[in-house]
């Protein structure tokens, strides 16, 4: 009997509605073609993360990965769907329990400059929540913060400084220390290394790997960088315009991508060993989330699009043990779609 996943999202959606103000409502009454703008940032997503797993969440702009991350962390309430923590529905829990769940799921943010309060000292940034929630006594806050900073590789003597006195990589570490100070079990990393230099990126990624081993953490690692995701994740989830298009164990998805979007994405990554590559571009722009194409969102750009793709939304189905893909091509008798070619000229 397998254990319930640590965090589970079932059928979650998040809609952002730009409501009409009074003037626009009047205009609509008078016959103007004014509609409320709805962005389906996340559209019916199921996600389950087991304890100790690292799930990589990948996609481009408008795919909804950041929103999904915030739904997982409890920062946005979902417009539809339910969130489960250790098998129990979070919204049905009493407030005290909900608070504990909130502390158990922490987020690491992308921008090391905007994610720290510029007017607070590091000791307060990192230690505040732990003291407020009674995890440590106020008297020992300094020592506790020193310990947290040491764990992320920062010099503890710096705790009285302000964020502007640190470099980008150091600030990223302070953000991680802040999250760790409340002893979470689950970390949502929202493009946590995207804004960092390559050499610092490696250091912070190594820190994530080390913390995973030392503290038994579970990660939802959101990134647009497929190389980083491949290195860190056990399992990868690919999103496009609010929907999950494919999910599989890391090695399998990179070796044999099934969904045409995954194939295109992997073909597009610049690689160190490909010289003078003739870039074969995937057609078209990413559509605006305000007006996603009907049926399968990817069909305007898909080299294998069929008439069915314009009408019917493909369902995420298991095509192999542990591998799921949402593509009508998988229904075809021919089986797996042909993989894309990358031209390499010497």
């Amino acid at each position: 009997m397998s254990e319930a996943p640590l965090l589970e999202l079932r059928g979650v959606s998040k809609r952002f509605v730009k409501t009409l103000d009074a003037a626009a409502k009047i205009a609509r009454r008078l016959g103007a073609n004014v509609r409320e703008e709805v962005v389906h940032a996340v559209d019916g997503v199921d996600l389950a993360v087991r304890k100790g797993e690292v799930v990589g969440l990948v996609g481009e702009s408008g795919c909804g990965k950041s929103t999904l991350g915030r739904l997982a962390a409890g920062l946005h309430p979902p417009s539809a769907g339910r969130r489960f923590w250790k098998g129990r529905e979070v919204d049905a829990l009493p407030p005290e329990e909900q608070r504990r769940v909130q502390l158990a799921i922490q987020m690491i943010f992308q921008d090391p400059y905007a994610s720290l309060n510029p007017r607070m000292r590091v000791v307060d940034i990192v230690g505040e929540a732990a003291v407020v929630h009674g995890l440590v006594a106020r008297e020992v806050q300094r020592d506790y913060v020193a310990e947290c900073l040491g764990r992320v590789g920062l010099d503890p003597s710096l705790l009285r400084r302000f964020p502007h006195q640190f470099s980008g990589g150091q600030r990223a570490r302070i953000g991680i220390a802040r999250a760790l100070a409340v002893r979470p079990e689950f970390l949502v990393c929202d493009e946590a290394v995207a804004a960092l230099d390559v050499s610092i990126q490696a250091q912070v990624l190594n820190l994530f790997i080390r913390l995973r081993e030392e503290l038994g953490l579970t990660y939802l690692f959101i990134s647009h960088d497929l190389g980083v995701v491949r290195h860190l994740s056990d399992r990868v989830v690919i999103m496009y315009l609010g929907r999950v298009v494919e999910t599989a164990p890391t090695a399998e998805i990179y070796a044999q991508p099934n969904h045409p979007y995954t194939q295109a994405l992997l073909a597009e990554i610049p690689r160190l060993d490909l010289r003078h590559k003739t870039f074969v571009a995937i057609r078209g722009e990413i559509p605006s989330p305000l007006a996603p194409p009907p049926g399968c969102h990817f069909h305007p750009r898909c080299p294998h699009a069929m008439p069915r793709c314009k009408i019917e939304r493909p369902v995420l189905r298991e095509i192999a043990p542990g591998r799921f893909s949402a593509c009508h091509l998988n229904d075809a008798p021919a089986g797996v779609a042909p993989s894309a070619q990358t031209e390499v000229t010497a």
Partner: protein
Amino acid sequence: MSEPTLKVAGLRTHFFTRHGVVKAVDGVSFTVEPGKILGLVGESGSGKTMTGFSIIGLVDPPGRIVEGEIRLKGRDLRALAPAEWQAVRGDRIAMIFQDPMMTLNPVLRVDTQMIEAVRAHAAVSAEAARERAREALVRVGIPSPDERLVAYPHQFSGGMRQRVAIAIALINKPDLVIADEPTTALDVTIQGQILAEVQKLCRESGTALIWITHDLAVIAGLADEVCVMYAGKIVERGTVNQVLDSPLHPYTRGLLDSVPSRNRPGAPLRQIPGMTPSLLRLPEGCAFRERCARATETCLSEPPLYPLGDRQVRCFHPIHAEDEEPVV
């Protein structure tokens, strides 16, 4: 032998701030041949962006170019008067910025801006200029150019805007284009499109291109030659195959080793210890000394950039072939 499109020799750009002198660019030299693509690689604080700005003359106080020679097809750019710079910028040298909104005026239509760019440098009629604008948009792969010409920048997506910015940069067929991280903020699939366009255009028109980035993988696919910069200086220079396949400088080596695709999945990445030093407090001698495993006492004096075969490296202990670890 024909003259290089761009020759930079001993360029030094310093910033005189309240806290001290920041030597953003400190002795940079390279050449770019017509039709070739030079990759200028480095992390933040390496001076790569400032080098680009210095070449096109956009360094603002408290910074200024204190020394160095910059020649565009033999013409001395440092000696240009402001009026002469007006004629050169946009016509002979163009720049593409990371944020396309640094090129595009949000309150003007695209055709207005492009026509303006053409007529500032050539005495043509508005109709002729418009025709050239339309061709430029087609060349960068923008569909339905007539509709796009009458649109405003905010009606475009990020990738489209960057393509319009590139179209404006190339509209007067400049000799040199400097691109400062133009695809860093764009999605991978859009980046692929833009790289394809830029590469094609350079090969066809003989424009020299300097591509400034921190992403080695983009350079791998795009560039002919690479200069790696660290703390304001070039630390290694060579063809893209030479630098990426057999790096000489420990920093280049460290950068390549830390890329996830060069490491075993799941294992800790090989990392360069420490941090880029603050440009106000550079260590004595080699700026990379404190992070380098190969450092000795010799490194307390500054290493010059010296040739090693047809390559250049700034290191007393470059990595030779026999030291090489096989690539994972």
